């Protein structure tokens, strides 16, 4: 049997991936694998094409998807993109192709493995963002900024901006991803991306800010919250399994009540 391995390389942007779709349909060449241009290539490659990202072509592909897919499905695709999982490119490529080739699209066909996988990954990414919204714990710093270190599984900071911006419109805050070393800073007007020096970062990773860095009242409120958490527990119904199911251990490090 003759197996021909075709790869595309691209610049690892979402527009780049859509450009790959355009290129494939234009050239009638369909890849077995889509890789970052600077990434490692497999050993046996029969044909390799580098696809240059072109905004207009990406827009055309996206526009054609808007005709077939609901906004809900398109948002799921963006969530899958944010997952940064190794399977992302080919999964999205196959999904786009199946929807393009089917007269009405296959959005609701959950009997199809790719449709189901897209839904499952999007669900995971959504859950990850929701966990952030639940478990972010701000500490008020001496200069009045509410600071929270976080470690989401996926790169979901961008998804939570609208929520925190609306809710805490009158207080400056920083939500900082200590694993990816990138964060969001809100100055009561707009949100900007920031990153700290490696030295500051290692301090932040501890989760608790130094006494001299937090506001005067911060320690008291943390103590009040811990006390509340303790006394609201009903001892007759202890069930740590359920607690961990809803609030997995990996979040505990930055939770004030469990520090």
């Amino acid at each position, binding site marked *: 049997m003759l197996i021909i391995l075709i790869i595309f390389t691209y610049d690892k942007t979402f527009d780049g991936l859509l450009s790959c779709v355009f290129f494939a349909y234009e050239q009638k060449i369909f890849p077995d694998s889509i890789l970052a241009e600077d990434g490692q290539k497999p050993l046996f490659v029969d044909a390799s094409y580098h696809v240059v990202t072109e905004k207009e072509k990406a827009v055309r592909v996206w526009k054609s998807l808007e005709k077939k897919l609901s906004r809900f499905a398109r948002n799921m695709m963006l969530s899958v993109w944010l997952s940064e999982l190794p399977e992302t490119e080919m999964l999205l490529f196959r999904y786009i192709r199946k929807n393009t080739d089917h007269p009405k699209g296959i959005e609701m066909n959950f009997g199809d493995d790719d449709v189901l996988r897209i839904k499952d990954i999007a669900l995971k990414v959504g859950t990850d963002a929701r966990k952030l919204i639940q478990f972010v714990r701000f500490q008020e710093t001496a200069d009045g900024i509410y600071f929270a270190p976080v470690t989401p599984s996926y790169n979901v900071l961008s998804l939570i901006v609208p929520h925190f911006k609306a809710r805490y*419109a009158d207080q400056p805050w920083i939500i900082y991803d200590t694993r990816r070393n990138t964060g969001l800073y809100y100055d009561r007007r707009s949100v900007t991306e920031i990153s700290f020096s490696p030295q500051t970062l290692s301090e932040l990773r501890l989760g608790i800010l130094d006494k001299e860095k937090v506001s005067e009242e911060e320690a008291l409120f943390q103590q009040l919250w811990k006390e509340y958490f303790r006394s609201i527990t009903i001892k007759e119904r202890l069930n740590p399994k359920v607690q961990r199911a809803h609030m997995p251990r990996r979040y505990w490090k930055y939770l004030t009540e469990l520090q």
Partner: protein
Amino acid sequence: MINEKTLDKLKILSDAAKYDVSCASSGTTRRPVKDGIGTAAGWGICHSFTPDGRCVSLFKILMTNHCIYDCAYCINRRSNDVKRTAFTPEELADLTIEFYRRNYIEGLFLSSGIIRNPDYTMEQMLRVVKLLRDVHRFNGYIHMKSIPGASQELVAQAGLYADRMSVNLEIPSEGNLKLLAPEKDYGSVFAPMRYIQQGMLESAEDRKKFRSAPRFVPAGQSTQVIIGATPDNDKQILTLASHLYKRPSFKRVYYSGYIPINKSDSRLPVLAHPPLVRENRLYQADWLLRFYQFSVNEIVDDTHPDLDLDIDPKMGWALRHPEAFPIDINTAPYELILRIPGIGVKSAKLIVASRRYGRLNFSQLKKIGVVMKRAQYFIACRDLPMQTVNELKPEYVRRKVARQRGKKESDLLQLSFDWGE
């Protein structure tokens, strides 16, 4: 304002508030207001989980644990020798704001023991929510207890500030309520429920005419009944719940397994453990009523007035009605698919959406999320040559799917217990 003394008060007044199960913060959306703080998301957000597995969404607290009543089941009853204290409205408002700013909570759940009289208590609570909304411009979620016996005028005021209000029935039959709480009767509980509903309906009418008319308890009302403190059976409890759900304002009935707080009271039973399995089965039955289009007499009847503790109530119905099965997954309407044990609302919807593209097989069902361990006896599906409940007989299936008695109750709870909405 807030100092070390606050810590002691917080300890006492949160400890005394914890037996109220409700913590939901869903059912209403609040958009941000100018110069204000807070939003409500529509979906309930749990900010933490205590070691008992319960969600912490709202700051659940009593105004005071002083109380003029002497209800047998309550920790704050007059005759109990416990430390008494009270928050000032300012203190409570400040605490709420500071907790909210740190993303600890979605909002406030305010309740209280009864001081002097119901109206005075209600006025004190109103001061807190008015401070929050009018002075702090707090726009997060507020759940407020309506005190039994409080006047309609005060309830009408509170409803404009709160997202949800609730009055607890506590005891599922009036006779037993009178026995355990001599100073209360159903009249004093149902009156504020009526006031809340009336306010909601009037506000809905007004908002049809003027879009800017104020909202009144937009997230509706809820109540709580204690399970296992009285001999009331599940049929009585579920009948009561389904009557409440018929009212347009009612969103939730909470079931709270009785925890023997006042051990020496001879009117109350002696229990080694709170009845957690029964409580869980009641929640499952409640779900069947609200989301699965079941009626009470399908779940419990005079021959089976109590829920089966070893199997879930949907399985119980299915085993009593083998003639309704097998159901063909590829052709049956949505309502029938919902009746199959092991298939929930989510997988039923996925099945109905996907089968238009082609017949679904066993492995697809599994991937979609159907619990085949329970569902397999009740479905007809292309590549399932297996035997159904009709060939195997209900007794056999029951043995296969029943909860193993050796297993800890907590293992069961993990499967399907959901505190949110």
